[in-house]
């Protein structure tokens, strides 16, 4: 118990970093995923095949390898994020968003976008075929049909798998520990090494906070799903 009482500021800052990682990656992955799904179902076969190849390759690579690429291998060929240097001073410590953070955000975005693409594609396949036929019948081109008719319904229909991918993203932010981003799992490791006696309390607190975060996400999605459900 002492370990938590002494270090509550570190725990709070690390969870703030986790949530920031999640928010940035979530927005990025949703945007990139939507672009990917538009390429995937589009009329231009080169784009279709490129998107399919990208999704297949990245889906089958472990997330850790992608993060390690941006942290270890990419600087060797000149890709680094040294220009990112944001520090948010709070009363309890600094939230540091530096090149490791930026690399983790980029890696998480690229990885999760593939799963978002697959989730939205299942949503697109769930839209009744008559909708697309009607869109063609009133003369909408591919872009118009996607924007006005198909994608809004696809997001509705694909919301459960989409939320699953975002929950998985929230849990995957812990992998950024391996590239030295000071988020929740890193703080857990530090505290476990320093306070071996309190390990059950530490696990309870960290796991408990994660369960709460996941349940909040889940509840928000249930709300949206109920509001947008079609009968």
């Amino acid at each position: 118990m002492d370990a938590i009482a002494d270090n509550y500021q570190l725990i709070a800052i690390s969870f703030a970093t986790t949530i920031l990682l999640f928010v940035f990656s979530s927005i990025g992955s949703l945007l990139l995923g939507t672009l990917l799904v538009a390429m995937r179902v589009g009329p231009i076969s080169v784009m279709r095949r490129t998107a399919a190849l990208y999704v297949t390759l990245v889906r089958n690579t472990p997330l850790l390898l992608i993060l390690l690429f941006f942290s270890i291998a990419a600087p060797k060929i000149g890709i680094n994020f040294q220009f990112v240097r944001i520090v948010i001073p709070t009363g309890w410590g600094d939230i540091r968003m530096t090149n490791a953070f930026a690399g983790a955000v980029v890696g998480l975005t690229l990885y999760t976008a593939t799963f978002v693409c697959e989730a939205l594609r299942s949503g697109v396949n769930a839209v009744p075929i008559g909708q697309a036929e009607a869109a063609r019948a009133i003369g909408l081109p591919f872009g118009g049909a996607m924007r006005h008719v198909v994608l809004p319904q696809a997001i509705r229909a694909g919301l459960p798998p989409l939320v699953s991918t975002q929950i998985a993203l929230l849990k995957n932010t812990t992998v950024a520990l391996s590239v030295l981003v000071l988020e929740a799992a890193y703080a857990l490791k530090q505290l476990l090494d320093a306070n071996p006696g309190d390990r059950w309390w530490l696990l309870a607190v960290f796991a408990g906070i994660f369960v709460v975060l996941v349940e909040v996400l889940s509840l928000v999605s249930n709300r949206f799903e109920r509001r947008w459900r079609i009968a």
Partner: protein
Amino acid sequence: MSTSVLFDAPGPRTVRRHRVYSVLTVVVLAAALALVVVRLNSRDQFAADKWEVFVTPSYVEFILNGLVDTLQMAAGGIVGAMVLGLVLGIGKISDHRWIRTPCWAVVEFFRAVPVLMLMIFFFSIYGIYNGTSGPFWCVVWALSLYNGAVLAEVFRAGLLAVPKGQSEAAYAIGMRKSQVVWIVLLPQAVKIMIPAIISQCVVTLKDTSLGYAIAAPGLTAVARPIYLEFQNHIPVYLVIAALYIVVNLVLTALATWVQKRFVGERKQLQVSMVGEAQSERAA
């Protein structure tokens, strides 16, 4: 929905426009590829001494040992997960609330906690004190717990996906609940669940790489001594990623083949997500 309905057979102007788009896309992709190759070349990443490692037999053996370790961890994780998933899945459809609620709580908990946190926790209990084999078992236990919780949901969904008439007929001829589940439902449910289980195998295989954070053996850990010695980060990264992709593609192809051969046209299993309200329907 067939996606060919989204766009009509193209007329002459559209054909020209699509050709322009295709050419533009190909040009952009070729430019990106050329940029990458030029960049790599300018830093001598294509030099022979960086790639020599991968044709030297002893180093190839070293890398393949890492692959074997990864496969062993994944296999251990899957076996543990199947056992735990079976127990929890059957517990979740029990008629007795004092069995159902703890099973539900355990499954929700282990689905919501990240696998890496479980690995770190086990490492601090057991792994630190048992140098080489410790982290291996920490990874296996963490993977078993997490995938067991996911497989519990798969088992539950599979048991509920068997046509209702089967269980009704079994109850009608006087079978008890446990007999219905073991003799009638499970054998039929296994066929439905196999693709989902194989997808979970792919997830397990990818998650074994997380052991890197707790110094577990495996394909990702094998990369470090090689690139530290030979300073060939990019080639090592590419080869390790390629190995992972190949193994996962083989597993995915297996899952697709099994789905086509044994399950046929039936819809894919729908597994509920974390936190979703559970219907009270039992088998």
